[in-house]
């Protein structure tokens, strides 16, 4: 009987592993969902930081300033936007999950934007649908 219980516990432990690696909505408790959302946000932050630093390194001083200014403004917007979106959850146990999910979502959108903007900035005219239709 004891072996059976141990086996069942072991099986349970194994089944929770894929869940931990999967989307946050498969979490069992609110604490787990919160932690999952936070770790997802941290992954997105690591990715944007790499992209931002790599992009910055390619520029001269003038473009570095433009990108740095844009990025600081984006961080202010991101925090203000997520504060707004999460306003209804103040004090609730879901607050951290909504907070980190919001930060991660906006960070991933910003990653796409940064990639596209870098192509445009570098003079790639195909980045702009109207750019090739003009004279001059």
């Amino acid at each position, binding site marked *: 009987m004891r072996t059976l219980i141990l086996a069942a516990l072991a099986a349970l432990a194994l089944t929770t592993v894929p869940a931990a690696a999967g989307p946050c909505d498969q979490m069992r408790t609110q604490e787990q969902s919160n932690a999952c959302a936070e770790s997802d946000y941290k992954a997105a932050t690591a990715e944007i930081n790499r992209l931002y630093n790599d992009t910055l390194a390619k520029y001269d001083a003038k473009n570095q300033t433009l990108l740095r200014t844009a990025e600081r403004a*984006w961080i202010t*917007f991101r925090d203000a936007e997520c504060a*707004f979106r999460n306003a209804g959850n103040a004090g609730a146990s879901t607050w951290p999950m909504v907070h980190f999910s919001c930060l991660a979502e906006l960070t991933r959108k910003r990653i796409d934007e940064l990639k596209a903007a870098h192509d*445009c900035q570098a003079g790639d005219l195909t980045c702009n*649908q*109207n*750019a090739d239709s003009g004279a001059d």
Partner: protein
Amino acid sequence: MRAWIIAALLVAPLALAARAAAPADDSQEGFNCANPTTQIEINICADKDYRRADDALNRAYKKAMADEDAHGRELLRTAERAWIRFRDAHCQYAASGSEGGSMHPMDYDNCVTELTDLRTKQLKEGR
């Protein structure tokens, strides 16, 4: 003759003002934004498109504000101001490759229009 010139000078600004206040009708400009042919026309059309996007955003923002209580309105107002600063800074960066060229106004306007349309969509979706 002199009276004619004075009359013409008086009328000209009125005609220009009427033109500026006219709705987005390309025929007023003497060309069609569906098929602009010079860079200047393209730039004017890009600006017109931005104004269309800005109007839509203002409508969506007002509607979103109306759905909020005082606290929500304050948070949304802060977010919107931050978003405008971000959008402008981002487009100054993104369009800097064409700075000094005749395409730059179009590049900048297209960038601002694209972000504005996305923001309108986001505001319409609600939080």
